[in-house]
Each structure stands twice: as C-alpha cells, then as structure tokens.
C-alpha cells in the first residue's frame, strides 16, 4: 500500500476511535454514578437522589446512543481498514473482542432498555438491578477492550507460525504485561472524567442558585471522587510508566524526548524536540528529574531515542506534547480535588464562589486528558501496530486511495455534525436540570418523551391512581 493511502487509513481510524473514546469514557463512570444514586435512594428514600438519577439517566441515554453507534463502526473498521492486521493477529485478538460482545455489549444494551424505560414497568429493585448490570456491562467491556489493546503493546502467550500469531496460553494473552496497569489507569481515568463532569454541573447549578439540594450532592460526590482518584491516578500512571519503560523503552524515550541513553535524563518541562538533529531546542528542565522518576536513582540510565534505529522510533512531537498535556491536566485535577475536599471539610465549599466559578468550567478536562493519554500510548507504539509482530505500514487493507479519502471525509462530516448536535442536546438537558416541576409536568401530560415519562416516586404517591391506570393499560 502506498504511504498516502496508509496515512488516510490511519487518519480515519484515529478520528473514529478518538470520537468513540469520548462516549464510553463518560458512560462507564456515569452508569456507576446512576447506580450509586439509585442504591442510595432505595436505602435512604431521599427524593432528590431519585430526581438526580432520572436526570442523569437522560444524559446517559443520549451519550450511550452515541457510544453505541460509533462503537459498531469500529468493529467493522478493523476489517475494512486493517485487514492484514486482522489476518496476522485475529486468532489472538478476535476472541477477546468476541468475549467483549458476549459478556458486556449484550448485557449493557439489553438492560439499558429496562434502565431507561422500566421506571414504572418493573419493580424498583429490579430497576436498580438493571442499572447495576449496565454499569457492570460497561466495565466488562472496558476490561476486554483494554486486554486486546494491551496485547498490541505487550504481546504475550502466543507463537508465530508462518507470520501469523497463534494463541498458546489465553491467561497470558489476557493478562499480558501491560494489561493490569493499563486497565487500572484507564478505568480510573473514566471514573475521574465522569466525576469531573458531575462536579462541574454541581458547581454550575450552585453558582446559578438552582437545584441547591441536587447541586450539593453532586459537588460532594464529585469532589470526593476527584480528591481520591486524581492522586491515585498519579501513582497508577507512574507504575504504568515503569512498565512501559520495561517493555516499550522507545515510547518512554519519546515521552521524555530523551535522546542520549548514556547520560542521566533531565525532567523536561518544555522543549521543541528536533527529530532531524536528534536533540531538543529551547529546553526547560529539572536536572536528573526523569532519571529519578523512572529509575528511582538520580543518576540512573535508561534508553534514549538514539539507541533505536530511526525506523524503529515513534514520532517524538505528538508523544512528547500529548504526554505533557495529560500530566499537566492530572496536576490540575489533583489541585481541584484536594482544594475542594479541604473546603468541604471546613464547611466552606458551597459558599466559596471563587472555587465554584472556575469549577463549573472544568468538565472537558477529563476527556482531553484521556485523548492525550491515548495519543501518547498509541503513537508511542509506532511504527508497530502490534509491538514487535506487525508494523502499521504492513497492516492495512488493499483498498483504493479514493475510497479511503471519500469515507474519511464522510466520517468527519457525519461525526462532527451528529455528535456536536449530541453535545448541544446534552448541554440543553443540563440547562433544564433535574427539575421536579418538569418531571411532574411530563407525567401529567403523559408525553411520549419516554426517559421522562412515568413519574417520580413523589408523583407516584400523589397521583397513585393515574400511574396505576397507566400500568394496567400497558400490561394489556
């Protein structure tokens, strides 16, 4: 395949995956958040928890739909764009994706129906159970996807026969060396991302003086999660980095823009790496910092980019800068979480407008960090698509340049229009908010806008007769 077509195929896949990642990284945490709200509501009977659960379920429905449709695309694109990849590693990766469909995709998609529309169709306990099953499904999905992705970085448990990977030990394949770290890192990132969105929405209502009871719950739950997960993520990320150093040293060298492996590495805060001259310009760094972090000795050595031949090096710029964006956001989040927790502990949180005002705008940070981190790890694996087994250049499908170009343009047009509409609708749902009045009004009108239809528990008590009639009617 010629380099231009290869580039288009990569651009197309990078674009569709990048857009897709946004939705699951939000819904994985959101499903757990909604399930937690519902469980707390069942235990305490506090109505605002129910309202919050219904409110977030509407947002979940819109996000999940976008995640599903963009995810189906990927399961086919592996074949349409990367058929040689499918041939070479399909025997090993295929079953992992197959198990994802069977254990996770069906579970979440099916119980989603009950979670969204079962409010008054099934018993409250069964409904809460459905929400929990959806949350479990989304997590299992992440488990299998990350197992497959990790294997592309650190393949294990296979043998190569005639250039094709054959499975030998499934346990070793699934729990390949980078999987535990990657899974912990990504899973924490997902929960963190959702927590930040919830925190930001809570702050938004608090600043506007709307839905105070709900806003307080969201702020407490959001800040509590961020204060714990953001520092934890730093530790997990550090461990993941050490694992990468062991198995993919070229990636780490690019992350640190570390050229000369014979000398200890500085921690570079900023630089313009020059791949031609094999050095950095305008470097601002902390001496011996990177050696200390990665080897735990101030004068420890690890491989530099010059230790790899040019065709085995990943592109330095994207890896280097994306890594700094990710870590930078991580630091901001640690500050946001700890500061919020301190304000909460001293009882000043809900009155601290100087904290809440910026906090309402932090919602995109988790998504940006996830995309940046994904960019680091995937670009850092280049030139390999499956490390040491298959180069990206050898993985593409025999498809014509024009066909790839056309579909790339279509993907960009369709995704940007459809998903920006989705973001617009989500913002409008947030603008409307978990309003009691709206939920009840919708019940009275029995509008077909089904995530709202039915009624709150309060409305159920108040208008017992109405709901009973509807339920009987529906059971005919």
């Amino acid at each position: 395949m010629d380099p231009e077509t290869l580039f288009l195929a990569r651009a197309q896949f990078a674009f569709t995956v990048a857009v897709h990642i946004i939705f699951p990284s939000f819904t994985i945490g959101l499903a757990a958040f909604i399930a937690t709200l519902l469980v707390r509501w069942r235990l305490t009977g506090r109505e605002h928890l129910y309202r919050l659960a219904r409110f977030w379920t509407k947002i979940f429905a819109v996000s999940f739909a976008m995640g599903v449709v963009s995810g189906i695309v990927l399961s086919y694109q592996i074949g349409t764009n990367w058929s040689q990849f499918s041939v070479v590693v399909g025997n090993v990766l295929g079953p992992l994706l197959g198990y994802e469909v069977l254990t996770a995709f069906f579970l979440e998609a099916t119980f989603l129906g009950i979670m969204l529309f079962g409010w008054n169709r099934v018993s409250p306990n069964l409904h809460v159970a459905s929400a929990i099953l959806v949350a479990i499904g989304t997590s299992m999905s992440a488990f299998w996807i990350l197992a497959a992705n990790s294997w592309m970085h650190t393949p294990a448990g296979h043998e190569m026969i005639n250039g094709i990977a054959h499975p030998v030990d499934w346990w070793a394949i699934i729990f390949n060396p980078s999987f535990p770290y990657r899974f912990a890192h990504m899973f924490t990132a997902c929960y963190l991302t959702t927590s930040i969105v919830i925190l930001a929405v809570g702050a938004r209502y608090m600043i506007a003086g709307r839905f105070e009871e709900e806003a307080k719950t969201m702020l407490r739950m959001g800040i509590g999660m961020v204060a714990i997960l953001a520092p934890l993520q730093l530790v997990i990320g550090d461990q993941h980095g050490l694992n990468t150093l062991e198995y993919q040293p070229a990636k780490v060298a690019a992350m640190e823009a570390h050229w000369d492996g014979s000398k200890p590495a500085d921690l570079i805060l900023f630089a313009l790496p020059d791949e031609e001259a094999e050095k950095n310009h305008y470097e601002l760094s902390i001496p011996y910092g990177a050696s200390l972090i990665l080897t735990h000795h101030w004068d420890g050595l690890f491989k530099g980019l010059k230790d790899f031949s040019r065709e085995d090096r990943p592109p330095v710029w994207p890896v280097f800068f994306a890594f700094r964006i990710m870590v930078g956001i991580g630091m901001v989040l640690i500050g946001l979480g700890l500061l919020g927790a301190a304000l909460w502990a001293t009882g000043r949180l809900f009155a601290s407008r100087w904290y809440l005002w910026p906090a309402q705008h932090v919602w995109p940070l988790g998504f940006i960090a996830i995309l940046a981190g994904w960019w680091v790890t995937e670009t850092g694996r280049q030139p390999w698509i499956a490390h040491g087994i298959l180069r990206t250049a050898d993985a593409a499908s025999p498809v014509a340049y024009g066909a790839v170009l056309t579909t790339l343009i279509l993907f960009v047009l369709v995704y940007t229009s459809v998903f920006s509409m989705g973001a617009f609708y989500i913002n409008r749902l947030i603008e409307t908010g978990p309003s009691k009045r709206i939920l009840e009004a919708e019940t009275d009108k029995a509008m077909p806008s089904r995530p709202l239809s039915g009624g709150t528990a309060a409305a159920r008590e108040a208008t017992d007769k109405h709901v009973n009639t509807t339920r009987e009617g529906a059971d005919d």
Partner: protein
Amino acid sequence: MTDMSYFLPLIWAGLLGLAVVLYVVLDGFDLGLGILFPITPAEQDRDVMMNTVAPFWDGNETWLVFGGGGLFVTFPLAYAIIMPAFYLPIIIMLLALVFRGVAFEFRWVSKPNHRFWDIAFAWGSIIATFMQGIILGGFILGISVKDNAFAGGSFDWLAPFPIFTGLALVVGYALLACTWLLIKTEGELAKRSRERAKILLVVVLIAMAVVSFWTPLVSERIAERWLTWPNILYLSPVPLLSTIVAVQCWRSLNSKQELAPFLYATALFLLGFLGLAISTMPYMVPPTLTFWQAAAPPSSQGFMLVGTLILLPAVLAYTVFTYWTFRGKVRPGEGYH
C-alpha cells in the same frame, strides 16, 4: 485435534448463520419501521412506531456486532477479505446506522424541532438496509481473491444483482415492520399496517422468486447446487415450504390475527436465508475459501466456543426477558410507563 479442526469451523459457520438470522429477525423490523416513516407522516404514529422498539433497538443492533465481530474471531481470513471487498457499502451502512441510532434519543430531546431526526431515522434505516442487501447480493455473486487477499476493485458490488437484492431487502424489512406493528399497535395504525403488509408480501414473494431464478443464472456453482439430480429432489422442500408459509402469511393477514403474520413473515425470511446458505455452502468467501480454509485455529475457535455456549443462552434469556417486560400494545401518547 484433526476432528476439532473439522467440526469447529462447521459449528462456527452455523453459529454465525444463527447470528445473521437473529440480526435479520430482530433488527429487520426495527430498520423496517424507519423505512415506513416516509409513508407514515403523522407525528403521533411515528412516536408510537419508535416507542414499539425504543427499549430493544440497542440489543437488536448488538447482533450486528456479534456477526461482524464473530466473523473476525472465528474466520479472520474471511473477515479480512469480505470487509475490504465491501468497503464502501459497509462504511455507508455504518454511517447510516449512526444517523438512525442517535435519532432514537435525539428525536425526543429535540422536540418540537425534531423534523431533521425524523428524516435521519427514515433515510438512515433505508440506506442501511439497502447496503445490507447490496452486501448480501455481492456476497452471493462471489468475491475476487488472490493470494488470500481481496483482489477486486472498489465498485465490484455495483452490479444489477446486488442492487436488486438491496431493493428487495428494503421491501422485506418493511414487511417485517408492518407485521410487527400488528402485534404492538391498534386502531388506525394497525389497520393500515395490515393493508400495507399484504401489498408488501406480494412484492417480497415476487422478489424472492426473481432471486431464485436469477442466482442460478449468474452463478454456475449455484445452478449446479440446486438444479442437478438428486439435489433437486433433496432441496425441493425449501421452495415448497416457502410457498406454504407465504400462503399462510396471506391468510393470517386476512383473518384478524396479530402475532401470526409476524411469525410467518419471519419464517419466510428464514427460508430465504436457508436457500442462500444452501447456495453458498461450504464457502465462507465464495467461490474461493471454504469454512475450513478461512477458519481460525482450533485453539481460538475452541476458546471462543466454550464461552459462547455458556453466554449465548444467557444473552438469549435476558433478551426474551426484556421483550416480555415490554410486552403489550403501545398506545398514542403513552410510551412505556
């Protein structure tokens, strides 16, 4: 081990066939509702139609992932040839599914300005179905393969036969949707669906007959399969049964039955599918690669089979459970509450 490498590909070909059947049965009427949108202009009717599948569409579409993913898992070589061969139809289908999938949610949250999502749902469904039919037709015609890789052009599928099967599938899914509405709705919408189902049934039967006569003409391999002695005798129950089912479907539409038309229409689809399966067997990539040549090694197929035998019944059980939970008629202005 040699036995395994003989039986596993057969079992998996069967399971993937089942996945395709389940997809067609479950998502067929689902897509069909979108196909019926342009001839069902009233907002209230459209609301009801969407509400009849709203809790299920997600699960229904998952069978498409299971089919595509399953092919990748168990026949990676076939996957690596078929996907590039139908590059454009597959990607257009996926994009069409994006529009119709998000329409389920977007249409409600954008009300009263939901006109765009009505159009997106309708055309997304129509185009996705048409592309599925094109892929089916192109698959029957065969795929050009050299050195275990796709060796044809971007537009190989653009031929009269695949276009015909594409149109036929649009009509077929519309029929399934009409019969589904007989189960799930009442009053004027159900009455109209019954009338439409009769017309669509006739068109579907004509299309099936045309495909049956056309396939032996375009493919010698298929002609040999069906029209030589003693195959013609062994295989004669397929057209015979199809005729009986078609007659029964027509009669059930004329007597006021609600469930039977859907079952007969589905049975008709299954028989059509069986006919196509007989035509292509034992090829995973007609006319070059058989089940065995395209199969993943027994270690992969076996590992997947163990999980599938445990998990697939569970999936089917909770799919049935959801359909049972949301049983009964959907009335205007009601949704599921």
